[in-house]
């Protein structure tokens, strides 16, 4: 009995939500949110088609590209380099996101946090150096 009591105490310390008695019913609001979100999209699409007047002309149906007249086909092969740069951008972008929580807790994390973050930045600088030397950013 004593053993199981201490066990429960440990659980209580580790997880404060344990006695909230979560049931599947508690997640009903989330399901409702999903339904409302999806319903809103469907409703708006339907309403715009229904309410909006339809006036077509050749110039109106043209592709709008910042006021410049569109030239040629949009579906042409383009250099794969663009894809590579985009992927690398996403990678480094995600890494930069980790700096936000650090910036918010900068004082609390102290010197240790600073060292850890420095190590993290050093790691991704190594990655940056690597892709530069590998020629991933050369646009030729």
């Amino acid at each position, binding site marked *: 009995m004593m053993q*199981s009591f201490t*066990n*429960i105490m*440990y*659980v209580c310390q*580790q*997880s*404060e*939500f*344990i*006695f*909230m*008695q*979560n*049931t*599947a*019913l508690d*997640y009903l609001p989330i399901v409702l949110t999903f339904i409302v979100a999806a319903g809103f999209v469907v409703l708006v699409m339907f309403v715009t088609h229904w309410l909006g007047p339809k006036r077509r002309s050749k110039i109106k149906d043209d592709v709008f590209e910042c006021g410049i007249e569109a030239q040629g086909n949009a579906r042409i092969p383009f250099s794969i380099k663009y894809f590579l740069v985009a992927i690398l951008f996403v990678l480094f972008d995600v890494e930069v996101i980790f700096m936000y929580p650090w910036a918010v807790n900068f004082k609390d994390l102290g010197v240790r946090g600073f060292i850890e973050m420095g190590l993290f930045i050093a*790691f991704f600088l*190594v990655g940056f*150096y*690597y892709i530069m*030397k*590998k020629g991933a950013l050369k646009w030729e």
Partner: protein
Amino acid sequence: MKTLYILTALGVIAMLAELFRFKKFLLPIVLIGLMGAIASSVRDWNTNIHYYNYMMTFDNYAILFTIVLCVTAFLWFMMSKDFFGSESSKTDHYALVLFALCGAMLMVSYSNMVMLFLGIEILSIPMYVLAGSNKDSLASNEASLKYFLMGAFATGFLLFGITMIYGATGTFDLRSIGITLKSPELIQVWRGAGGTTLLYSGILMMLIGLCFKISAVPFHFWAPDVYTGAPTPVTAFMATIVKTAAFAAFLRLFITCFSGLGNVWMNTIWVLAGLTILLGNITAVYQTSVKRMLAYSSISHAGYMLLAILAMNNHSVGSVLFYAAAYSVATIGAFTVLSIIEKNFELASVDSFSGLAKKNPLLAFAMTISMLSLAGIPPLAGFFGKYYIFTSALQSGYVWLVLIAVLGSLIGVYYYFRMIIKMFSSGTGEVTNIEISTLQKIVLVITILLSILLGIFPDMVISLL
């Protein structure tokens, strides 16, 4: 814990090796680094230190599995030297393998569900790339894509399971979840509130995700194609290190967390194990390609190891560890021989091995020992692996499942012996010129010795846990 730092640093060093032009010294550096990693994990023996707010526990369980992983990786780097030696992007492959090894280490030492997920991802993403590392081969590209798509789905299942368990228990910490699920009072409270639905579906979802990683039967469809399509050394890596890490993770999760709720998942694993053993072995009989046969045999070995998880007694950890070690050593040996033979044939069939014993006794002997160990013939390591697993399953009363497993092993003997008979038959011998590098010879000798030594002194490993 220093082991993880060493492995990460090795990965970074391998990545930069080409840029700073010390590519030639990379293999020695990696091998010395791996030895350092093994030494540093031996030094942590019996310390049981927790890291990062109980995110990781480097206990004896983790240390033993880390040592098995590092030794296998050591052999792997020696056997694969020739394969990656000719390519310009060798350093990248080395770096990917070392990062995958870091992921495998996380998977054996996690004590938090988040770390389990991170470990699986760090292990899997390099594997997706490595499976497609033979860029000119269509099969390799297909393997990579297939592995990636299926792996992504399986990870989705695993993650969904983790969320559900978090929803039910309010924690990611393995120990707290385990204690919660073991206390009847709390379960009773939940039953009343109807909260067990979340928990049970969470457990089954995690089971699906992990069964994919170990390629247990209804989730095994990716394995034969990926194993066949990927370059042979990469297949060797997948069949040994990935499988060992996945089993260590599986066992740790179910022993610390879900052992209190056996009635929820034990029947499922019973059926999975039976199907895996039977289907893996029976399909392996019909394969002509040796690589595909080894893929199916690796599926069936996953079935045997599932028995130990099902047994859930104090012998199961030791038996899984021993089985993983014996299986990894024998598989590395078999794949080393296969990769040497494959220099002559694109897809080595069983017939390509005919008359090998006359042409090259060392190769034939190493392959024979590996096959006998995989088949479970005494006194080799594989026999004692099976013996420990079957006894631990029998102690927990799974008589019928053990009978199925023994039947599966008997079927296994057929296709393993077919290889041996082919090698010793006086066939015409299609193999013309065989070149074995010194490193590969060393690997073959080490695998032979380890298979025999582990078989003669199984207590060395078993008594550690």
